[in-house]
C-alpha cells in the first residue's frame, strides 16, 4: 500500500476540529478528486493516478457546459465511481468470508472506514441527481459478473453471509459501509434490516426443514449415528434459534443502535481521540511517546485501529455475542499485547505499568474439590463412630451363646461353597494352594476390618480365620 494511502488519509484527517459538513461545499471538486483517489486506493498506484487525472480532466469540462449537462456528467462520474466502489466492496466482502471473519473484516473496515467516513456527505441522498434508491439502482450496483444487482440479491447475499458466519455483526458492518459511502439513507437501512431479517428466517427454516428430513431418515439407522447427526442439527438449530430470536427481539432496538452507532462514528472521528483511549494505559503511553510531528501518520493509524477495535467490541457486546466482562477482558488483553509488541518492535516505549493479568473466570467448579474433602471428612467421621461398636455387645440379645455351633456350621458351609466356586472359576489351574493362601489373607484382612466396623464380632472373626487356616 505504501505511504500514499496513509498520506491521503492524513490530509483528510488533518482537520480534526472541523465537523464533517465542512466538506459540504457546493461543487467541492477538489474534495472529489481527493475522494476519488481514496476510493480506488485498493488498486495499483498507476491506475489510481491515471484515474485521478482522468477525473480531473472530466471535472474541468463540466463548468464549461450548461448546468444541466454538468449535473448529468457529474452524476455519470459519480455513478461510475459508485459502480467501481460497489464492485470492490463486493470483492472485499467475498474475500472477507473466505478468510477468517475476524481478521479481514476489521482489516477491510479499517482500510475503508477512515476513507469512507469523509464521503458521507458527498453521497448524501439529499443531493440532487444522485439516486440512491437502494432497491432500484441498477446502474450503480453490479454483481461481479456485471449483471445488475437487484435489491433482492443484495438482501439475499447479506442474509446468506449472516447465516454462514452466524454473526449478526456482519449485517451491521455491511450496512455501516453502505451508509458511510452514502449509498443508502438511514431509513433505507432500517428497511434493509427488516428485509434481511426476513430472508434470514427463510434461510434458517429452509435449512432446518432439510435437516429435519435428513434426521427423520437417519433415525431409522443406529442410535449412535442418529445421535451424531442430531447433535449437529440441534447445535445448528440452537444457534439459529438464538439468532432468529435475537433478530426478532432486536430489530427495533437495532434500528436505534444503528443510528446511534452512526452518530457515534460520524462524531467521534472529529473529536479528541484520546477520550476512550485513556482507559488503555499502554496504548495511551504508546501514543504519547510517538513524536507527533515525525510519526503523526503512525499515530493516526494507531488511533484508528484502536477505535475500530473498540467499536467492534462494543458492537459484539451490544449484540450479546460476548458479555461485557469478556469485552473488557479482550480490550485489556489487547492493551497488554500492545505493550509487548511495542516493547519488541519499537524499543523506545517504557511499559512501566503492565496491566495485571486478567482473571479468567474459572470454569472448574470448586464444588468438586470441596466434595472430595467432605467425603474424606465424612469417612473419618464414620470410622470414628464405628470404632466404638465393639462395646456394643451387651445390647445384643441373649440368644447368641445358644447356638454357636449352628453359626459355625453355617459359616463353614458358606466358606466351603466359596472355595468350591473359586476353584471352578479359577483359570490359573494349578495354583490352588496359592489362591487359598491369598484368600486367607484377604479374608483375614476383611474380617478384621469388619470387626472394627461392628459387622463381625471378634469371636466370629476368629472362627472364620480359624476355618480358613484349617483348609
Amino acid at each position, binding site marked *: 500500500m505504501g505511504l500514499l494511502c496513509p498520506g491521503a488519509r492524513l490530509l483528510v484527517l488533518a482537520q480534526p476540529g472541523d465537523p464533517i459538513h465542512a466538506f459540504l461545499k457546493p461543487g467541492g471538486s477538489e474534495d472529489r478528486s481527493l475522494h476519488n483517489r481514496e476510493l480506488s486506493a485498493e488498486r495499483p498506484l498507476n491506475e489510481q493516478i491515471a484515474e485521478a487525472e482522468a477525473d480531473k480532466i472530466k471535472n474541468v469540462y463540466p463548468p464549461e457546459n450548461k448546468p444541466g449537462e454538468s449535473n448529468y456528467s457529474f452524476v455519470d462520474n459519480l455513478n461510475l465511481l459508485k459502480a467501481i466502489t460497489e464492485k470492490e466492496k463486493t470483492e472485499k466482502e467475498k474475500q472477507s468470508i473466505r478468510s*477468517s471473519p*475476524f*481478521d479481514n473484516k*476489521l*482489516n477491510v473496515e479499517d482500510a475503508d472506514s477512515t476513507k469512507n467516513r469523509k464521503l458521507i456527505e458527498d453521497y448524501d441522498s439529499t443531493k440532487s441527481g444522485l439516486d440512491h434508491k437502494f432497491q432500484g439502482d441498477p446502474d450503480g450496483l453490479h454483481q461481479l459478473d456485471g449483471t445488475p444487482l437487484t435489491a433482492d440479491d443484495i438482501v439475499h447475499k447479506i442474509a446468506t453471509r449472516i447465516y454462514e458466519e452466524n454473526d449478526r455483526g456482519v449485517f451491521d458492518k455491511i450496512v455501516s459501509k453502505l451508509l458511510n459511502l452514502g449509498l443508502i439513507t438511514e431509513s433505507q437501512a432500517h428497511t434493509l434490516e427488516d428485509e434481511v431479517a426476513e430472508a434470514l428466517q427463510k434461510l434458517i427454516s429452509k435449512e432446518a426443514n432439510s435437516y429435519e428430513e435428513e*434426521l427423520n431418515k437417519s*433415525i431409522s439407522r443406529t*442410535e449412535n449415528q*442418529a*445421535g451424531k447427526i*442430531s*447433535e449437529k442439527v*440441534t*447445535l445448528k438449530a440452537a444457534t439459529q434459534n438464538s439468532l432468529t430470536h435475537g433478530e426478532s427481539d432486536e430489530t427495533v432496538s437495532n434500528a436505534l443502535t444503528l443510528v446511534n452507532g452512526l452518530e457515534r462514528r460520524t462524531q467521534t472521528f472529529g473529536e479528541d481521540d484520546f477520550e476512550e483511549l485513556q482507559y488503555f494505559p499502554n496504548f495511551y503511553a504508546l501514543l504519547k511517546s510517538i513524536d507527533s510531528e515525525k510519526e503523526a501518520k*503512525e499515530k493516526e*493509524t*494507531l488511533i484508528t*485501529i484502536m477505535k475500530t477495535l473498540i467499536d467492534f467490541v462494543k458492537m459484539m457486546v451490544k449484540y450479546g455475542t460476548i458479555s461485557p466482562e469478556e469485552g473488557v477482558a*479482550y480490550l485489556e*488483553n489487547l492493551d497488554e*499485547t500492545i505493550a509487548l*509488541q511495542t516493547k519488541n518492535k*519499537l524499543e523506545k516505549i517504557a511499559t512501566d505499568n503492565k496491566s495485571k493479568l486478567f482473571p*479468567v*473466570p*474459572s*470454569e*472448574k*467448579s470448586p*464444588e*468438586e474439590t470441596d*466434595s472430595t474433602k*467432605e467425603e474424606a471428612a*465424612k469417612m473419618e467421621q*464414620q470410622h470414628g*463412630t*464405628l470404632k466404638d*461398636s465393639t462395646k*456394643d455387645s451387651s*445390647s*445384643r*440379645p441373649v*440368644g447368641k451363646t*445358644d*447356638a454357636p455351633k449352628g*453359626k459355625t456350621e*453355617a*459359616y463353614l*458351609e*458358606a466358606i466351603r*461353597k*466359596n472355595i468350591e466356586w*473359586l476353584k471352578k472359576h479359577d483359570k490359573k489351574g494349578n495354583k490352588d494352594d496359592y489362591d487359598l493362601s491369598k*484368600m486367607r489373607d484377604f479374608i483375614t484382612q476383611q474380617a478384621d476390618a*469388619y470387626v472394627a*466396623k*461392628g*459387622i463381625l464380632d471378634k469371636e*466370629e472373626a476368629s472362627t*472364620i480365620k480359624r476355618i480358613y487356616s484349617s483348609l
Partner: protein
Amino acid sequence: MAGRGGQALLALCAALAASGWLLGVGAQEPGEPAAGVRRRRRLQQEDGISFEYHRYPELREALVSVWLQCTAVSRIYTVGRSFEGRELLVIELSDNPGVHEPGEPEFKYVGNMHGNEAVGRELLIFLAQYLCNEYQKGNETIVNLIHSTRIHIMPSLNPDGFEKAASQPGGLKDWFVGRSNAQGIDLNRNFPDLDRIVYVNEKEGGPNNHLLKNLKKIVDQNTKLAPETKAVIHWIMDIPFVLSANLHGGDLVANYPYDETRSGSAHEYSSCPDDAIFQSLARSYSSYNPAMSDPHRPPCRKNDDDSSFVDGTTNGGAWYSVPGGMQDFNYLSSNCFEITVELSCEKFPPEETLKSYWENNKNSLINYLEQIHRGVKGFVRDLQGNPIANATISVEGIDHDVTSAKDGDYWRLLVPGNYKLTASAPGYLAITKKVAVPYSPAVGVNFELESFSERKEEEKEELMEWWKMMSETLNF
C-alpha cells in the same frame, strides 16, 4: 403404613385373610430340639435360605454367610447405627464390590423401615442369599445383573423397632408396636419435607431436583432427625443411586411419587414430572407378583379404600397423603427414583408364610432390579476427555433434571420415546442431543462439552492473529 383403626379383631381378620390368600404355605418340618430360645434352621431350607424370621444377630450372621460364600462379589458395610446402637447393615453385590465403576448404575433395596413390617426385611435377606447362590450356579440373568449393576441391600433400616415388634409374645403382632424407632419417631415421616418446597417452586418458579443442596450441615444439626434418618440421608448423598425400592407391609401395592398431596387434602393424585416412568417401574414390580396385580383381589381389610389401585400400583397422594417420606426425599434430593412396595396385608405374618411370600416376590424383586438398565445413560466430559461431575442433564418435556456423578457418568430412566437431552455445566457450552429410547436396554449418549474459556481462547487467538497481522502490515 399409617394406622388404620388397628384393633385386635381386625388384625385377626387380616391374619385369617392372609393365610387364606397365600398359596402353598410351606409345610413345617419337625425341628431339632431347641437347645435354647431360638430354633435354628427349623423350617424349610433351600439352598441355604432359611425361611424364618431373623433377629439382629441372625440377620448379621445371614449377611456374613452370604459374604463368606460370595467373597468375590459381595461386601458388607454399615451406613450408621440405630438409636440403640445396632448397625444399619448393607450387603453390596457387584463384580467389583466396594468400587463404583464408572458407568455402572447403583441400586438399593431398603426394608423394615417400620420395625413391625417384617416381610420386607426377610425378603431382602432371602434375596441376598438367592443372588449369591444363583451367581455361583451361573444363572445368566443374575450374573449379568451383578456384573452390570452395583446392588445394595439393606434388610432393615429400623432394627430397634423390629426387635420390639418381634419380642411380642404370641403369634399376632400389634399394628403399631415396633413401627417407629427407639425414640418413637416414625422414620417414614421423618425426612425433610421436600415435597412442600417443590410445590411452592412449582407455583413460584424454582428447581424441583436436588433440593437438599447446601443443606447437609442443616441435616446434621437438625435434632429432629433420627440417627437412622440421618444415616440414610448421608448414604443417599454419598452414592449416586439411580433406582431404589422401599419395602413396607400392611397392604399389597406398589406406590410411586408424589406421596404428599399438593393441596394438603387426604387423597389427591399428585403426579411428579416422571409420572410415566414411575408408573412403568411400579408395574414392573407388581406385574410379577400374582397377588399384588390380581385385579379381583379384595382389599386387605373390608373397609379399605383401594380405589386408586391400578394394576397393583398406585400414586402415593392418590392413596393417601404422606409427608416427610423417604421415597419422595430420594426423588427430590438426589438422582434416585424410589417406589414404595407394600408386600403383605398383614404387617408381621406368621413365620410359616415367609416362604410363600418369597415365592410371590422373588421374580418381582429381580425384575425391578433390571429396570435400572433403561432409558439413557452415558458420560459428560470436556473436550480433553476429563469427566465433568455434577453436570446437569435435562430432558425436554420432563421438568426434572439429573446430574452426573464424579466420573461424569449419568443415568436417566425414561419410558420409550423420542427425547432431546441437554447436558450443561457451569462454564461450559450446553449441548443438546436427540435420542430414541426403546423399552430396554439403556441407550448410550455421551456429551463432550466445550468450556467458555476454550471458546474464549479461540477467540483470543483470533484477536492476537489479527493484531499480529495488523502490526506486520503497518510495520508497527
